[in-house]
């Protein structure tokens, strides 16, 4: 009745020796003891394990866990023309860091960024794998811009470059594309800029379903405009962004939603029955059948064992929604 998905990243190591293979491999790579190809093999083993955990957890639409991403910004930006990667900067309010992209010329797509990663993941997953890209507005907002000196032209060029990547992903077979724009929770006034970017990406997505996801906060003030953006579904953080809940209840949505109801930033375990009850409260306001349940953001802020637990909570809640409806 309602399907389940995740948002993007997933813990790449756990607390057992076996689950720390990638940490050891990176340390050995840094010392020059193994090659880049061997490190790639170690990453792909973890991708397989992460896909297994999501499949076992009963998740309907999965991701590769972004296992090879250094962070949400530099992994995409480093493959674009005119970008260099700089030192560490704080990533929102998460107490984690990203390497800051520095823009020193006109942005352009140069080579495939995510296509091989997506192909590998889909080949190793029973469930459909969603391709997740950091959105042009968020990339533009978190980068150090030494060229454009204005957010809009930078965001537009980034959107064109990401559009090219999306078209490559779709040609490779991706049927689900997600664009993450967490910056909208901090700068809702930039929504028109996000829309311009999404229009450009939409033009390249073919038959794939396009989702816009916002997290790390609420978007109640722009909710009505948000659900009119040129995408097929809207993902919402309803934990840190709990204030968006009343906007959904008030306005409803014709467009399918991804309801980020399970807290991806706290180890506390939700009761699936309570999650289901909340979802059922929206039964008459949204199309539950076309919608998804998800964590509030990527699961990487949790220890691996707790991330697995959150997957189980999600699918248990979805089953309860199905039984009740």
């Amino acid at each position: 009745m309602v399907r389940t998905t995740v948002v993007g990243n997933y813990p790449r190591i756990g607390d057992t020796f076996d689950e720390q293979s990638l940490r050891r491999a990176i340390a050995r790579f840094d010392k020059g003891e193994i090659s880049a190809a061997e490190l790639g093999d170690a990453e792909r083993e973890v991708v397989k394990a992460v896909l297994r955990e999501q499949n076992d957890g009963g998740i309907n639409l999965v991701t590769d866990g972004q296992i090879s991403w250094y962070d949400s910004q530099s992994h995409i930006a480093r493959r674009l023309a005119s970008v260099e990667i700089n030192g560490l900067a704080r990533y929102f309010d998460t107490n984690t860091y990203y390497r800051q992209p520095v823009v020193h010329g006109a942005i352009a797509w140069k080579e495939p960024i995510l296509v091989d990663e997506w192909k590998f993941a889909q080949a190793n997953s029973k469930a459909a794998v969603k391709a997740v890209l950091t959105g042009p507005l968020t990339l533009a907002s978190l980068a150090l811009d030494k060229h454009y000196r204005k957010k809009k032209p930078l965001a537009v060029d980034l959107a064109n470059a990401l559009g090219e990547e999306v078209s490559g992903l779709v040609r490779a077979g991706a049927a689900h594309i997600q664009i993450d724009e967490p910056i909208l929770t901090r700068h809702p006034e930039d929504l028109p800029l996000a829309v311009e970017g999404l229009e450009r990406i939409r033009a390249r997505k073919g038959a794939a379903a396009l989702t816009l996801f916002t997290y790390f906060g609420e978007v109640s003030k722009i909710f009505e405009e948000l659900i009119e953006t040129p995408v097929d579904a809207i993902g919402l953080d309803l934990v840190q962004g709990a204030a968006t809940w009343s906007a959904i209840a008030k306005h409803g949505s014709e467009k399918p939603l991804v309801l980020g109801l399970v807290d991806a930033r706290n180890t506390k375990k939700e009761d699936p029955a309570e999650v289901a009850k909340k979802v059922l409260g929206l039964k008459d306001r949204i199309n539950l059948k076309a919608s998804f349940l998800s964590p509030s953001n990527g699961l990487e802020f949790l220890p691996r064992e707790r991330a697995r637990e959150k997957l189980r909570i999600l699918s248990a809640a979805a089953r309860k929604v199905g039984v009740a409806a």
Partner: protein
Amino acid sequence: MTGLLTTSVGSFPKPEYLQRARTKASKGELSEEGLRALEEKATAEWIHFQEEIGIDIPVDGEQYRGDMATYFAENIDGTEISGLVRSYGNRYYKKPIIVDELRRKGPISVDWFKFAQARTKRPVKGMITGPYTMMDWSFDEFYGSREEACLAFAKLLHEEALSLEAAGAKIVQVDEPALSTRFDELPLLVKAVGTVTKGLRAKTILHTCYGSYDEIFEFFNKLPVDQLDLEMSNSGLDLLDRFKREPLKKEIAFGVVDVHSHVVEPESLIRERIEKALTIFEPEKLYIDPDCGLKTRSVEEAQAKLRNMVAAARAVREAHRLT
């Protein structure tokens, strides 16, 4: 007139023998007492080093801490320690989990303060991981409210501050690296830090770092401490102009060396930075220190940076005839 006293933010790198010992201890191959003896050895060495180069206000160097939040949490009732989560790159850490009402088991850092203070006549800083940072860096399975969790930490950290003072600490520093995490919570931070420092006779300091100071600037004068300890060199000294327009009504500890860079700043560069700071702040209210804890540098890099810092401060003092 005196001025430009030198100090440190808190952490120093652990010597290799201590790093190896910590790995062993985590595998159960070294006893708690065995590890403690090496932590004491390293602490004594750092105190000796600070005396030798002439740092005015030493720190214990935090040789006994892994992470600043988990170290405190391990000594507080009502907490557990989580599995590993990633900070960035290949760096992982464990976070506190609040599972019950928070209570201080007993003194947390007081023994280490005493150990360090017994080895020097100079005033050693007492060091507290601040209540807002403790809350922000913990998972909360108990309070369900950031404010409640933060104020619960504040209450027990106030007891810790009183114990430090009773043990002889003339200076108590509250570390709040998470200060600029959420601007809308700055009033909560002010309230919580105020709870910790309330009624203390010791001089109080608040350290923060990695901030976008722009949006928190107006809160600087509201922070309930006597001194602010700020990262200045890594923020390109941009803040100075703002301080010119909106004067700080407190003492300032002014970070003059970048703790994230392997490059050891030459004395001449540090002197320039101190001279710039002197155009804004009175020398007796201006303290000189690194941007943040030096623990991510090598022992050699950290010592070289501190040596140049002390030499630069001394040279500027002489040039301005400060004793």
